[in-house]
């Protein structure tokens, strides 16, 4: 196989595999029934969406990182929480370390994972979208560290970040250093961000076609049209780079690790920019709580914090120069 191949068919396959997300996870659910989100987690299990890239023998679907990264884009569009990448990575890390029971409990839904970041002095840990009982997943530059958390409080927000105390220099439950696990983490998060960027573009364009002012749809005005064009360019670049990076990793092409980090960097900027422009295009509506636009912005921000911010990707990209 070669990286010089057209992946349109793979894209179609993954689209149909993940299409139920439209009815199972409509974005409006976060506004209308946020409290029901925990219960919806079972869908992830039933649909096999936590195990796309895991081998069949371990309870997975047996596909590759390419399909996983493409699926992540759909999940990003539907604003699945950061529990999704956390759980996928935790299950993978557990399997690699021979922790079968933990892996099984993550895949059958009886346990869940949440992304986390350690403070510089390693005394506290900030957790994202975490519920009591979640296992914590810190994405590191070399792979994944997992922690059992004490004292995580329950929350009623749609997205949240909270600080939890950790015993000073507490050791992780599990620590997996592996370039391809690190790349997987980068690509799944990048995929979600690319999905956010795409969905924001689509919603802005849709609104620009129907909202009329001064006797015509606002999308007819050049300033608005150009904003939409910019969103299209940004979203397309993010989508293509995530896909290309995933394909390169699957084909073990040279510089594929660089591409994964580049994809994360680009997707972080793409989600941030498009989420902002989507709000802008929606005008006053966009700023209100009744409109979904702000949810995309907040989700992008959570993911950004969970991976250590865009600056950490910049440091990695400069450190990796040959």
């Amino acid at each position, binding site marked *: 196989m*070669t990286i010089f191949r*057209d992946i349109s068919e793979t894209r179609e396959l993954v689209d149909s595999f993940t299409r139920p997300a439209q009815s199972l996870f409509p974005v409006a659910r976060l506004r209308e029934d946020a409290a029901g989100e925990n219960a919806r987690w079972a869908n992830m299990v039933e649909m096999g969406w936590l195990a796309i890239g895991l081998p069949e023998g371990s309870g997975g679907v047996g596909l590759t990182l390419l399909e996983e990264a493409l699926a992540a884009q759909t999940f990003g569009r539907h604003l699945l929480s950061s529990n999704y990448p956390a759980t996928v990575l935790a299950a993978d890390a557990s399997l690699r370390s021979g922790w079968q029971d933990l892996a099984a409990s993550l895949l059958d839904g009886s346990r869940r994972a949440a992304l986390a970041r350690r403070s510089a002095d390693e005394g506290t840990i900030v957790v994202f979208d975490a519920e009591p009982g979640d296992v914590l997943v810190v994405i590191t530059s070399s792979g994944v560290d997992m922690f059992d958390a004490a004292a995580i409080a329950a929350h009623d927000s749609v997205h949240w970040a909270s600080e939890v105390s950790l015993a000073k220099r507490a050791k992780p439950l599990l620590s997996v250093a592996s370039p391809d696990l690190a790349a997987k983490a980068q690509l799944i998060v990048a995929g979600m961000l690319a999905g956010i960027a795409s969905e924001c573009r689509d919603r802005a364009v849709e609104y620009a076609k129907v909202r009329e002012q001064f006797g015509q749809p606002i999308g*007819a005005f050049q300033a608005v049209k*150009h904003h939409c064009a910019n969103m299209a360019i940004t979203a397309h670049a993010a989508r293509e780079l995530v896909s290309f990076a995933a394909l390169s990793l699957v084909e073990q092409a040279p510089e594929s690790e660089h*591409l994964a980090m*580049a994809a994360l*960097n680009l997707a972080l900027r793409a989600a941030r920019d498009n989420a902002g422009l989507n709000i802008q295009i929606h005008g006053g509506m966009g700023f209100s709580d009744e409109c979904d636009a702000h949810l995309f912005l907040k989700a992008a921000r959570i993911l950004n914090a969970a991976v250590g911010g865009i600056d950490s990707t910049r440091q990695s*990209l400069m450190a990796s*120069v040959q």
Partner: protein
Amino acid sequence: MPSDDLAQFRAEARSWLHANTPAHSAPLDGPDSRTFVLDWQRCMYEGGWAGLTWPSEYGGRSLSVAQQIVWFEEYARCGAPSTHNASFVGINHAGPTIIACGSVEQKAFHLPKILSGEVIWCQGFSEPGAGSDLASLRTKGRIEGDEIVIDGQKIWSSYADIGDYQELLIRTDPESTRHKGLTWLICPMDLPGITVRPIKTMAGPAKFCEVFYDQVRVPIRESVVGGIGEGWKTAMATLSFERGTASLALQISLVGKVEQLAADCIDPFVAPRLADLRADAAALKAMSYSFALSSEHGTPGAEGSLIRLYFAELAKRASDLAVDLYGIGSPELAGEHGWAFEFLDAYSETIAGGTAEIQRNIIGERVLGLPRGKA
């Protein structure tokens, strides 16, 4: 194509390019540039590497997109002459238009000469009053028997001063307006009545030209392509089979240049910008490869505008950063092919061939389906 064969193809391309890439860099304008470009085209032709994107029935190699990608990767790696030189219009625009719409005689006469490096083509489309709004062009052609008599003026015709032929778009129906009543024709540049004035650009070279036509006579049969009055359709013909590979060399080369900047970067203030630039360059590669591969067996989507614009703006950011990185007066900036030249030349990328603003209109309207504004 199986990857073993592709590896073999790559090895052949690399070895030929290593052996044949000119040692000195290309002159940027004038007669020296003509000689250089024709020599290189002839060299590629003799080596069997000309017309890679052309159908084999017209002397091309009909390479698959994967092979074209590999060829252009090796091309950029060897630092071979930029494909956006005086050979560009012939190979990527006039030639393909003649392939799509030309008569049997026109194809037989012109296509081999383009491929073998005998002639240079230039483009006569824009006018002082017709830039972005090309359809408002006014250079006219009066039909007299079996000739057309041309009067008017074109501008921004790259390499018209060293060109042998021009693809010329004129208005042959005096009653017509806008896209109707236009004719695309082949105009030899040595005809009486043609005056060419090179214009010096802000980047230095005088490669754009003004061209004046004073009662220039061309024979209808040899010159008109696609039919009288069908000029707009003819001009658009190449769009339906443009596979996005014409600019691959340039795009891949830009990615390589960004990597070079990153390798040279020791300035902590510039580093974060350079990191983003590396990611942007990787995205350009991903988009252009994907576009080319996905259009191999069908009509390309409208993403071409998107990629073209992305490339242009990335080229500006990269050269901007290079100037900041190396500093005024540094050897990397100096000279005809230094970064200072690239920086200034990059300003033309968002203007030539459709301005960035027009591209955004096209993206907004054709890719996203947004409505056109009321006048």
